[in-house]
């Protein structure tokens, strides 16, 4: 699905200094797999996601989406940003429909799909409401339905639950696994919460501090479907401590 080879990204800061955000990073993501990326703040996680999304240039290397070089945003990719970025002057439904509206696809099929997605994330009662009436978690769920409405094959998520409280975060994690188990899209999910990374993932990628490189690639062999009880599973505990160790060594 995605093949990243030797990716390097150098920013030139406003002062003219060169900042190497990513260095020689290689990563393959197979279809239908949930891949999470953990790493310290500033290690280039957002940069990586933006490059895969086609929203950021890269300096060296190769990024292929289904064998074709990424050189711009694609309908096959849905993006959920760190903040919900909902348009406050559009309703929940209109925000979900935004990608379809941009394509001029306002027919019944997409409306039904939008309603179904909103139902799956528990927002069916808020279809006509405006984003200012939503809580942080609800707003982020609205953003997830927007990323899914065109049925992309790859979903990119940049710390979507980073701003939420622990209880809401748990609920969102659970809902996301359920959603994923019913759709099985390829997902690249960025987080700096190790538990979240393990709970959601088939594979956890651990990144080093800047310049970002991959320092561990940990397969998660926990059974699915998963519920919150998985977190007390000995294997879960073992995996999280192994990743924590890797992050420590990385420092």
């Amino acid at each position: 699905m995605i093949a990243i080879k030797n990716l390097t990204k150098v920013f030139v800061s406003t002062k003219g200094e060169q900042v190497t955000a990513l260095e020689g990073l290689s990563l393959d993501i197979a279809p239908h797999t949930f891949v999470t990326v953990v790493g310290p703040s500033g290690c280039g996680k957002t940069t990586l996601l933006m490059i895969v999304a086609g929203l950021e240039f890269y300096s060296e290397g190769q990024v292929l989406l289904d064998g074709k070089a990424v050189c711009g945003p694609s309908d096959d990719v849905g993006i959920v940003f760190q903040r919900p970025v909902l348009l406050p002057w559009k309703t929940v439904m209109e925000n979900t429909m935004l990608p379809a509206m941009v394509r001029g696809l306002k027919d019944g099929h997409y409306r039904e799909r939008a309603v179904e997605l909103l139902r799956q994330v528990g927002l069916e009662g808020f279809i006509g409401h405006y984003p200012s009436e939503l809580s942080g978690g609800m707003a982020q769920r609205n953003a997830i339905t927007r990323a899914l409405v065109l049925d992309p094959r790859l979903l990119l998520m940049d710390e979507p639950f980073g701003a939420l409280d622990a209880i809401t975060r748990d609920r969102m994690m659970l809902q996301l696994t359920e959603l994923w188990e019913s759709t099985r899209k390829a997902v690249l999910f960025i987080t700096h919460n190790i538990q979240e990374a393990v709970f959601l993932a088939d594979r956890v990628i651990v990144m080093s501090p800047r310049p970002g490189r991959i320092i561990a690639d940990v397969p998660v062999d926990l059974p699915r479907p998963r519920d919150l009880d998985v977190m007390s599973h000995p294997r879960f505990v073992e995996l999280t401590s192994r990743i924590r160790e890797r992050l420590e060594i990385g420092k």
Partner: protein
Amino acid sequence: MADSESAPCLNTALIPKRSMTARGRRTRPSLTFPVSLVALLLLWHLVVVGFRVPLYILPTPGATLVALWNGLTANPLTAGSLLFHVGVTLRGAALGFIVGGTTGVLLGVLIGESKALERILMPYAVGLQSVPKIAIAPLVMIWFGYGLPSTVVLTALLTFFPLLINTYSGLNVVERDYLLLMRGLRASRWQTLWWVKVPSALPMIFAGIDLAIVYSLLGAVVAEFVSGSAGIGVVIIKYQYINDTAGVFAALMTLSATAIVLHSIVRLLERRAIFWRKRDAHKQITATA
């Protein structure tokens, strides 16, 4: 007050904050404003009478109210009526506002959207904006003659700049995340402008409209000072000429009342247009020339 003392503490804590502030807001001004107004009028009267100020320097509130009453109750089709003159001033102001405001918004959008146009036109816009437009009034008279055309041109000039500048900067303060979102969706330039940038710019555009409303009245009155045959500006000059200061006061009050009404209409429209904004955000007030 006695109520809140005898009521258990829990009760006040249970009252939702919003209803409390809403009540506080509604009751307090409705009492304080009339009281302070009466006090002010009384003070005014005492100053005039106590210091024996001549009526042509400062008329008493009573004399002003009589002049206002006479002006407002006169047949509105005759030159003795303040309403007639307000009508004339409003016509000039409105025409100039429509011409100047629309061009300002449209050009603001064009400059905001096109880097090339921005580079060509922005220096002129900034340069011309700093010219005190009122000072051009006599020149406008020379070019456009006496009466309505000059009024419209001067008013248009005055209203054009606040809307040009506010539209342009409004389109430029859009949150980067929205633009990234739209780019990720491969939205067209037009879609991004229409769905994201224009709604984001609305608060700034309305602030510009608010400013332009006052400027349009200012422009119309100054044009009338210089060359008009009717309108509030003419009334003010006429009363000043015959030392009828009460008449000048009455004319100024009518003009201010008109401005307040127009301002309220703009606020109402703004609240409708920017329906998603929190209520308190509408409370800021801008000073005008």
